């Protein structure tokens, strides 16, 4: 029972269309009913929104190409200025009719010229009044161009007085697009996310011919079980499925298990997928590195992801400088006396401190501190005497260059520079461990 039906298009084409857009039948049939027959008018502008990889671009392209409707498809990230965008639309219109290679680009600066040239371009083609569709992908970039571009596109049918419909595709909701004084409201259509059943169906379609469909869909089941919680993006899942399939097939290839031994296959692949989540999914290592890793027999060795390279070996005093900077950033000034003096009196908890105990300093971020405070804390945590030589100061500057510290405020401040420590707790703990310094004892938040 075919789901898509329309009097204007032959049923064979519609059947073909239906097979190309699985799980999107209701959206496509709504679009078909809105488009109507070829010469009929439709909404002057349509706005389609939905998450990444929910099929907006793919469905639009497939629909327009399969039904051979006259259309122009432009990506607004590619044509990021108004001039590029308008010229691209005109070029595509010219190319639509003529079979020869790209006609010379017509210079088009303003929307005024565009309207005139658009009308001319339509006349030169043999369209017989069919609706022309102008599809703008990543339409949120239109907001960054001149202020008249978006409202003018929404009204293109009125401004050119021709049968044209503008379709905007975006991830962001319409409320973020609306200009201040209002505009011509488009028809808004939502493409919901694929559910887990839909994802299963779509991913299982790509099975390689050597294995059976059931085998592949069992694999997809396992993959979705691990990744669905975290990621529903169809493109990412396709990428992950392609990368990990060879590892999944390994036991079958090595004749250790049969195709139906799901338990064994699951035990083999599960740790691998968990590792994949931390590396390939986060793009810590590239997919070619991942494939190389899979070819290695035996234990999965230490995978050096991108974040691992962030570790630096620092000289002895630099480590203490960094620790001192961290303490200066994350401890409030009042508590310095308690931590760093040999004989401190009782510290009364004032009202201020009681009120603000709940917000941990680690959630708010590092605070700036002056250079003197840094040096004071440094001298108190290093056991032997440190002479304030230029060496120490140059080490501070190199820490700034490494972006482990950052300078706050103007360069030409008269009463000393102020810094801020920009490393994370895990990093500083690792460093503190290498010099046998228990940093947790000195942090106010962990009292």
């Amino acid at each position, binding site marked *: 029972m075919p789901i898509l*039906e*329309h*009097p204007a298009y032959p049923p064979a084409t519609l059947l073909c269309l239906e097979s190309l857009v699985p799980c999107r039948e209701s959206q496509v049939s*709504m679009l078909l*009913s*809105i488009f*109507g*027959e070829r*010469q*009929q*008018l*439709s*909404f*002057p502008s349509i706005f389609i*929104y939905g*998450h*990444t990889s929910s099929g907006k671009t793919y469905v639009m392209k497939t629909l327009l190409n399969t039904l051979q409707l006259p259309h122009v498809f432009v990506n607004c990230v590619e044509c990021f200025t108004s001039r590029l965008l308008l010229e691209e639309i005109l070029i595509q219109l010219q190319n639509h009719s003529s079979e020869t290679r790209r006609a010379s680009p017509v210079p088009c600066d*303003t*929307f*005024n010229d565009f*309207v*005139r040239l658009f009308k001319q371009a339509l006349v030169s083609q043999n369209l017989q009044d069919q609706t022309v569709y102008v599809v703008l992908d990543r339409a949120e970039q239109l907001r960054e161009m*001149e202020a*008249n571009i978006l*409202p*003018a596109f929404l*009204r293109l*049918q*009125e*401004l050119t*007085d021709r049968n044209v419909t503008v379709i905007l595709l975006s*991830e*962001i*909701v*319409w*409320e973020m697009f609306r200009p201040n*004084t*209002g*505009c*011509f*409201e488009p*028809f*808004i259509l*939502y493409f*919901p*996310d694929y559910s887990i059943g839909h994802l299963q169906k779509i991913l299982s379609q790509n099975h390689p011919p050597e294995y059976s469909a059931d085998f592949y869909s069992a694999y997809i089941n396992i993959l979705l079980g691990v990744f669905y*919680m*975290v990621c*529903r993006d169809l493109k990412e899942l396709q990428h992950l499925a392609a990368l990990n399939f060879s590892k999944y097939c390994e036991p079958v290839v090595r004749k250790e298990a049969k195709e139906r031994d799901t338990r064994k296959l699951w035990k083999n692949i599960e740790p691998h997928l968990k590792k994949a*989540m*931390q590396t390939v*999914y*986060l793009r810590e290592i590239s997919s070619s590195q991942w494939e190389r890793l899979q070819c290695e027999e035996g234990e999965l060795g230490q995978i050096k992801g991108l*974040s691992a390279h962030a570790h630096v070996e620092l000289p002895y005093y630099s480590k203490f400088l960094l620790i001192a900077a961290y303490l200066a950033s994350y401890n409030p000034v009042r508590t310095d006396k308690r931590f760093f003096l040999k004989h401190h009196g009782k510290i009364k908890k004032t009202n201020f401190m009681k009120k603000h105990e709940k917000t941990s300093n680690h959630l*708010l*971020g*590092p605070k700036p501190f002056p250079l003197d405070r840094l040096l004071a804390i440094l001298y108190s945590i290093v056991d032997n005497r440190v002479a304030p030589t230029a060496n120490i100061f140059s080490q501070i500057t190199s820490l700034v260059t490494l972006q482990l510290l*950052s300078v*706050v405020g103007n360069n030409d401040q008269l009463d000393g520079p102020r810094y801020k420590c*920009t490393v994370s707790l895990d990093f500083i703990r690792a460093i503190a461990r290498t010099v046998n310094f228990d940093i947790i004892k000195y942090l106010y938040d962990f009292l």
Partner: protein
Amino acid sequence: MNKRKLKESSGTDGECISQVQKMLRERLCHHRAMGKLFGIDQQYKHLLELLKQTTVCGESNSALIIGPRGSGKTALLNRVLKDLREMKQVKENLLEVHLNGLLQTNDKVALKEITRQLHLENVVGDKVFGSFAENLAFLLEALRKGNRTSSCPVLFVLDEFDLFVHHKNQTLLYNLFDISQSAQTPVTVIGLTCRQDILELLEKRVKSRFSHRRIYLMNSFAFKQYIRIFKEQLSLPAEFPDKAFAQKWNSNIQLLTEDKTVQDILQNLFHYSKDLRSLNFLLMLAVSNVTVRHPLITASDLQEASKQYRMDSKANIVHEFQKFIQRKAHCMYNFEKPVVMKAFEHLLQLELVKPIERPSVRSQREYLLMELLLDNNQIMDALQAYPNCPTDVKQWAASSLSWL
């Protein structure tokens, strides 16, 4: 014989339906809809009188048509112009220049467009020669040379008038209004705008040359008239070729207007926005579902259309995403911090969460202060509608959002 008859009737049905669709789509979607104007008879008469004075008696004038978006300003003007052109005294006597604030974004472009539309002598094909100053001088001279009795009156229509006000020095507006005040070629300037405070945006010298004549279109009809408009927009005219079908259709529409559910739907839309453009959208959605199998509009069609039209877009997006607002401690699945960061960046990309100030080099990404652009109710609704939501996420949301 029966089969043949059936085939014929279904054939005519297909033809018939497609004609119905064509006619209604033109009426509902096309900007130049030549249908009836509802509820703005007074304004129509006013404008018609004004333009008649210009064309017949050679008076110069200026007026502003002010009304919210979709209230029918352009439709009114087009209708008046159409009726004017059909009048005997006016035939071919009026020169029109149509400008739009969205297209002519500065005075240079506007001037070239005026020169082009008036087919003045410095236009060859499409190209206009000369600099801005030359064109302006040429235009003004051309317009000043005439006099009331012997020259053709010129009508300037400025759509999106509030955008012309932002041009440098408001030169174009100043010159146009200036000419309309001096006794040479009869010139009428009509501006259309959606801003009620348009007069405050005009400069003093421009404002003093404007005649302060304003025509307001306020969507001021009651609900009963709204229902009548609904009926009229959907009815097929008497000239429709298939008379039997037209009658069936029209009686169906009459039934719909008396149906309680349809009235509720219209009432909801009426409370949301009174303008006719939204009504046309709704009707267009309902009409697009009319096929050979389903030749008459039903109340459920209208209900579907209304639901589609009024979907809460943010709720849709949040619905898919509140999974990622969970903290590590509160859920069974422990995700590493970078994975949660990636999900958070996706939220940023969707603009559900926005940084308070632009991220600079100085501050770290993780510590940037953000604000959530959603309402508590939207989050709660999304949680209710989300399938397979872990109970601890729901409880956490309920406890922390309920007392806010």
